[in-house]
């Protein structure tokens, strides 16, 4: 089992001096994921907070080979890098024993929305790569617009709450399930507050034969509107309310990695962030009820899938 003390002494592949916000969750995620393989690594990063805040020329926070080409194509860009690796190996221009890992990275906008097609195509073709979506539920880099990962009832600048609107009126797209439907060897959902779980999942993803996908909850104090020191508590709350279940699907078999002893009401989650503040007006009570129902339904469904998977 990995120890934090040992991880802390590994070389950073993402370093200090990046421009992400105070209390941002992105570095916490990648600090762990980038340590889950010791092989050389090449990253393709979609446009978004991570990309912008790490590469403001002439500075870069990347201490690893990295490319950005556009917003919607991290998956097809890394697929191209991987294809060239295979080609040059076949042609004997890269030593046969040289191992390189390939990683595509995007936010929820770059993954659930505009990049979904490229991601679907790249995993369907079976490129050997890991894709990590850091899901902060919003287009954060451009100032807080809705994505298909923005939850029901959250206020986003393109789905704002107002006297006639309770915020976003649609629920979240279930991206992890979409990726499971591609029948790839490994899909998992993780969160930064359980670093060991995140580390294990990243390791499994890097070691999978074929494409692997991780969906990681990403704290965003700026857009979620909470005291930035409280982020890890929020991640815990997301798991305890089952708003963000931690689970993995290995070759089609579901396993829940964290079951709260006592499922907490989503109310606690909603109260913790400014983006849900308007839900506490009387006329929006039904939204809170609906959110609870949706979370209960999804959790129930997931529990059943895990139960079926555990049968021999």
């Amino acid at each position, binding site marked *: 089992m990995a120890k*934090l*003390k040992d*991880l*802390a*002494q590994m070389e*950073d592949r993402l*370093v*200090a*001096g*990046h*421009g*992400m*916000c*105070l*209390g*941002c*969750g*992105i*570095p*916490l995620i990648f*600090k*762990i994921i980038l340590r889950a393989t010791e092989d050389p690594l090449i990253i393709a990063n979609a446009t978004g907070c991570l990309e912008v805040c*790490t*590469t403001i*020329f*002439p*500075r*870069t*926070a*990347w*201490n*690893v080979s990295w490319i950005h080409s556009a917003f919607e194509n991290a998956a097809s860009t890394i697929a191209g890098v991987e294809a060239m690796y295979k080609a040059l190996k076949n042609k004997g221009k890269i030593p046969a024993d040289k191992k390189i890992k390939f990683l595509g990275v995007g936010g929820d906008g770059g993954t659930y929305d505009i990049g979904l097609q490229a991601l679907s195509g790249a995993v369907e073709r079976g490129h050997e790569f890991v894709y990590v979506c850091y899901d902060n539920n919003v287009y954060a880099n451009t100032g807080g617009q809705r994505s298909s990962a923005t939850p029901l009832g959250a206020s986003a600048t393109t789905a704002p709450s107002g006297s006639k609107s309770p915020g976003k009126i649609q629920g979240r797209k279930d991206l992890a399930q979409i990726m499971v439907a591609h029948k790839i060897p490994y899909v998992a959902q993780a969160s*930064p507050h359980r*670093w060991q779980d995140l580390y294990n999942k990243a390791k499994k993803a890097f070691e999978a034969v074929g494409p692997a996908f991780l969906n990681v909850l990403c704290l965003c104090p700026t857009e979620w509107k909470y*005291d*930035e*020191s*409280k*982020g*890890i*508590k929020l991640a815990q709350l997301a798991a305890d309310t089952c708003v963000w279940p931690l689970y993995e699907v290995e070759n089609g078999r579901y396993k829940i990695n964290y079951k709260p002893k006592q499922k907490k009401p989503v109310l606690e989650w909603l109260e913790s962030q400014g983006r849900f503040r308007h839900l506490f007006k009387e006329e929006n009570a039904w939204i809170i009820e609906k959110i609870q129902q949706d979370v209960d339904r999804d959790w129930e469904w997931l529990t059943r899938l895990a139960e079926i998977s555990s049968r021999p």
Partner: protein
Amino acid sequence: MKKETWTELAIGALNLQAGNSVSNLTGTWRSGRKPEFIEDNCIQCFFCWLYCPHFAVRVEEGKVTGFNYDYCTGCGLCAEECPTKEKAIVMVKEETKIIEEGKK
């Protein structure tokens, strides 16, 4: 930092200086509070290292030894997550600094 002319840039929109963002001192963003390390209370759990978004927790010879204030933004995540009963990290008030010219 002297800015290159167009003929001095590497061909193709590249940055060849891996990790040179370390010259960007995010500690200059700190306003009003900073963490203080109380070594005697520390159990070396490394949570502060883990949860610091700005790589500002100093690790020397396998031990957490305090903070690198050049990068610490004062977000307070480390103090919040420090698990000891008698906190090994406390957030303290800090006079807002005048950002030194030329440090950036």
